[in-house]
């Protein structure tokens, strides 16, 4: 009787042991690779910032805002914005020249419809933002300064809304900092 009960429990014990061993192995791998992955992500951000601010010599990261310096002088800010697109989240890197003007916009990742919404990632759309005042970041049909991509109003608007609202938020916290 006792042996039979043990036989019934054995599969449960077995799979529990396997799961614990698996968790152990993954935890170990994670601890070995975590620093490296963190470093890779940092390099990626750094190269994107450098593309946006070619003169960058160093940057600091505080309150989710990157402050860019050239030889110790502040030359701009950058931050991440997330837009709700047609096919999911759109990750955007926004660069500010000063507290009112957009310097550049880069789409980091998106999953919009290929050929239509995905064109938000093209440089011609990003160029629409350069030099625009934060308050004017909205579609031309809504009284702003940005042209939507034909056939991709939802995706265009998602980017624009994300850039404007996040930019206003960040500028506010920049002003509070001073």
């Amino acid at each position: 009787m006792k042996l039979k009960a043990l036989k019934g429990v054995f599969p449960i014990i077995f799979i529990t042991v396997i799961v614990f061993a698996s968790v152990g192995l993954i935890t170990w791998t994670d601890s070995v690779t975590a620093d490296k992955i963190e470093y890779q992500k940092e390099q990626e951000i750094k190269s994107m910032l450098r593309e946006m601010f070619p003169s960058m010599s160093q940057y600091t990261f505080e309150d989710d805002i990157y402050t860019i310096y050239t030889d110790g002088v502040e030359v701009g800010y950058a931050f991440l914005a997330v837009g709700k697109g047609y096919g999911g989240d759109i990750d955007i890197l926004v660069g500010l020249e000063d507290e009112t003007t957009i310097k550049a916009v880069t789409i980091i990742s998106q999953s919009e419809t290929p050929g239509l919404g995905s064109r938000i990632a093209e440089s011609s759309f990003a160029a629409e933002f350069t030099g625009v005042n934060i308050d004017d970041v909205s579609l031309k049909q809504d009284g702003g300064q940005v042209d939507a991509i034909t056939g991709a109003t939802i995706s265009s608007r998602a980017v624009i809304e994300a850039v404007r609202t996040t930019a206003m938020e960040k500028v506010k916290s920049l002003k509070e900092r001073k």
Partner: protein
Amino acid sequence: MGKFWKEFAKGIVISNPLFVLALGFCPALAVSTSVDNAIGMSAGVLFVLLGSNLLVSAIRKAVPNIVRIPVFIVIIATFVTVVNLVFHAYVPALYESLGIYLPLIVVNCIILGRAEAFASKNPITSSIADALGVSIGFFLALLIISFLRETLGTGSLSVFGAKLFTLPVLGKDPMILFILPPGAFLIMALLLALFRKIGVMKCE
């Protein structure tokens, strides 16, 4: 030793996972857009298959029959997660381009198929041979598909940043269709038909 080579060789041609067993089509069709991807994917599959076959074979006598599939899946998922982390840490470019298909090795039928059909019934050395053979078979199949897709679809071939050659006419006007999903199906179908016709791969 003869048995080792027999198990090793069978995975490459007579029971090639893609062209004969028709397993693992999903990742094969999705990541065969470039030779780089094919190499990266195959490296991932090799590691996972080797690890899972080895472990499944080692514990095959202890595993209670009713929980064997969950046990295999946990083992496979563990190795896939390890591969995922390692790729992310050391080859970020490849990690980016393989995207979701790297973690999806976990549902690649080749891996569970070999664990269930082979490793759970055979000793460790045969299982290692089987894993190596099947992975190389998968790699060669993927290499042929991705070679054709990359050369036809982009008009040139480059492996890990080194440009090998550019085709005369296609270099200027590539047949982009072959990089897109329909091209994957076309190439795959033509290759399957070709191999059946010349009788290299026989379907039992």
